[in-house]
Every structure is written in C-alpha cells, then in structure tokens.
C-alpha cells in the first residue's frame, strides 16, 4: 500500500459531525455526559474515548462580520512522530500507510506519548491505565476501506487518497479558494498524514498548534541522552579495566605494625 493522506477542507465542512459519530461507532466508544458551556463543540477537547472532535469558532473578519469556522481535530499521523519515538514498548508504531497505529495491548500507560506529542493528541484513561488516540481506522485500512470519518462525510470535506494525489488536491483547492487559504500539515514534522486546507491564516484557529515540531526535549532525551548513557557507561567499564591493568589496584599498606597479610587484587 502506498503512503496515504486524509485531507480536511474546512471550507467544505458544515460541522454536521457525522464524522465524529462514525468515529465513536467504529471504535465502539461510549459518549460521556457533558455539560453545556455555550458551544456546539462537544466534548470541548479530545478525550481518551473521543478520538476526534469538530471545533466550532466565531471569528470577525476585517469588516466586522462574524463568521463561523470549523476544524476537525484528531491525530495528525506525523511522518516523524514524537509519540512513536517516546513510546517504550512499540505500542505506537508507523504503518506502511504512513499513519501512526496504536496497539492498546502493548500500551503500559506510561504517558510518555502524552507529553511528547506536539499536538497534545494522545489521552490517558485511568480505568484501563492506557492511552488512546485515532489510529486512522487501521482495521478498516487493512480491509481496503476508508477511515470511518471519511466514509461518513456527506460534503466531501474529508478525502482519503494517495499522498501525492492529495497534496495536489490540496494545492489546487488553495488556489481555488484564494485569499488567506493555505495548507497545514505537509510542511511540519516531516509531513503529516492528516492534513488541512484552511480558509483562514493558521493563527486564526483556536488551539491549533502553530509551527509544530518534534519537541527539542524529546530529541535531547531519546536521540541524545539515552544512547549517550550507554556509551558513557561502556567507556567507564573499559576505562576501569584498563586502569586495573595499567595502574593497578590500590593495595592496603603492608608496613603498618598491626597489619596482617595484604589482600591482593584478584
């Protein structure tokens, strides 16, 4: 299978939330009771049992007109995924589709990925002591089906296709929309496999990670300090061995009057 991309086009989205429901249904996740806080955005953020939400947001344009904009938030499926780097057990992994899969059976609930993800996507669930996130419906992909959210979308705001084709579709849509329209995802973390065509400039969108990168802390921890700690310890072991051979151990003082025989170095 080729590398794939799921494309979200917010200009075509009506926020019907069919995708959100389809996601719940396919993944067999119950909804939790929430409270009305004055927005259709419900639940307000991703949860351990809610892998995607539609953001609802009022924005004022330069003429003072109020406009409603939407955004589908879920795992971005990074090519350089900090969660995969941080995961100690391989529960998070890259697939041949370019998506980031999650095997809950291997998850130990350490929450490394929760802290590592630049999009703050993985969510921890106390009851199962595990982390959950969108896996792009890997079970469907393996059976030549599209992700459930794409399947449910009635307006064509969600598309699923091969990477190159989707990037081209996105570029064409940006041209078509004109103005501030732009793409989001392809330019970050070595390319995401969930990407956006946005009508507005990126900073306009609430809670959208601006210029996301694999956090420096993750690089310092996983790519630098972890291997260095083995290297340093190895150096010490070799150094100690050489010290023993070349300099020799520090033997007890045998000239002391009460001293018995010195215990020699083995």
């Amino acid at each position, binding site marked *: 299978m080729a590398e794939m991309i799921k494309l979200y086009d917010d200009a075509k989205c009506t926020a019907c939330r069919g995708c959100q429901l389809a996601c719940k249904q396919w993944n067999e996740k119950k909804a939790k009771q929430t409270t009305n806080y004055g927005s259709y955005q419900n639940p307000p953020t991703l949860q351990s049992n809610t892998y995607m939400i539609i953001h609802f947001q009022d924005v004022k344009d330069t003429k003072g007109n109020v406009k409603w904009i939407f955004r589908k938030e879920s795992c971005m499926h990074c090519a350089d995924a900090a969660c995969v780097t941080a995961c100690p057990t391989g529960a998070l992994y890259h697939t041949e589709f370019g998506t980031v899969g999650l095997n809950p059976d291997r998850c130990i609930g*350490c929450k490394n990925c929760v802290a590592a993800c630049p999009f703050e996507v993985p969510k921890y669930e106390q009851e199962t002591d595990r982390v959950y996130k969108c896996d792009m419906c890997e079970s469907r992909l393996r059976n030549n089906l599209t992700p459930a959210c794409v399947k449910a979308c009635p307006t064509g705001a969600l598309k699923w296709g091969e990477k190159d084709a989707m990037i081209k579709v996105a570029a064409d849509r940006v041209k078509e929309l004109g103005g501030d329209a732009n793409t989001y995802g392809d330019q970050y973390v070595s390319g995401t496999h969930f990407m956006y065509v946005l009508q507005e400039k990126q900073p306009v969108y609430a809670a959208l990670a601006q210029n996301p990168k694999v956090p420096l802390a993750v690089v310092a921890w996983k790519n630098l300090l972890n291997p260095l700690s083995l290297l340093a310890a190895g150096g010490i072991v070799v150094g100690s061995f050489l010290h023993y051979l070349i300099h020799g151990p520090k033997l007890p003082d045998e000239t002391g009057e009460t001293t018995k025989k010195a215990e020699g170095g083995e």
Partner: protein
Amino acid sequence: MMEVKEGMIKATDAFERLVHWTLAISCIILFITGLGMMFHSLNFIGDFMGGLKSLKYVHNIMGLIFGFSMIFTISMWWKEAGVFDLPADWQWIKVAGGYLWHVDKVPEIGKYNPGQKMFFLAVAGCGILMLATGLLMMFQPEFLPMWILRWMYPLHALGFFTLFAFFFVHIYLGTIGNPGSFQAMVHGWVSPGWAKKQHPKWLKEMEEHGTLKIYGGEKKKDTPSH
C-alpha cells in the same frame, strides 16, 4: 578474604550497611527496568516480570523505595561524605588521589575521600532529581505547563546518564580497584593496613578521640562513636 579477623577496624555500622544495600538494590533494579523501557531491543527484560506493564509497576515501586532510602542515605552520610574538608581535600584532588599517575605521597584524608564525596553528592543530587522528575512524569499534574513537563524526560535521562556512569566507577573502586573495601559494606570491618592506606586521617582521628573499635576486644576507650 572476607572473614573478620582480630585487629580489624570497624568502618560501618549495621544501619549504614542496611541503608546502603536498600539504596543499591533498588537503584540497580531501577537501572534494569529503566533500560527495559529505554530501548525496544531491551523490552525482553519485561518478560522476566510478566510483561512491560508489570515492569512499569516494578520501576515505580522501586522508585519509592529508592526515594525512601535516599532520605536515610543523605541524613546519615551528609556530615562525612557531603562536605569537603578544604584545603586537604583540594590537595588530594590535585593528585587525583594517586589513582591516575604515580604520586609519592598522597595527601591524607578522612573517612571519605573527595572522590567518594563527589560520588555521594552525585547520588544525592541525581537521586532527588530522579525522584522529582519521575513523580511528575508519572502523575503529569494539570498545573504543570506542557513545555515544562516535556523537559522532565531529558532531565530524568540526564540523571540516569550520571548515575549509571558513576555506578560502574563505584563498583570498580569498591571492589577490585581497592582490595579490602568491599567488606566495609558486608560485615563492616576493615583491615588496619587498608585504613592506613586509604583513610589515614580518619584512623588518626579515631585514635585521638578514642572512638576506634578493634575486633577482638580491647577497644581503646568505650565512648560511643558518632
């Protein structure tokens, strides 16, 4: 080699040895379980404890034991191993205690030499760091901004880097690098020749203060030590 003979000198009491080995064993288990989570190629370490999830629990529980023994380690050794005795210690550092090149006369030092003090301080400092960062990584409290939480991970890794490297130096110097040392942490008695070579000032001080305890009876004076 390990038996206690007449004329040997008391170096550590039972409490010190108990604390040392609680600290050491919990620390070594933390190393092993930590390594099991550090590299996928070492994930098999989890197989010995019923899977990686159990390995996580072992790591977390050992962290608590390590932290608990850290309290006693620091409180009982701070005076002897936590403060440098200047300028004598500085003289010793300048010749690296005679460990690296030939030195005719190594400056006399007390119960712990500056190298041991550095190790103690590294263990105390990194120990507290490991405990603090580990707890924050485990509980990820809401009030902690994400960018700060993220840095707990490399700090935890830095603590491991330091402790793991020092650990091998410590094992080497505590065993074959300094024959006669290991028993100080087994039964607590060392030979007079060892004491004279390793910690002459400590020996002299005990003689002066009458706190020297010699195996086989005649304690110089029966004043309680410490």
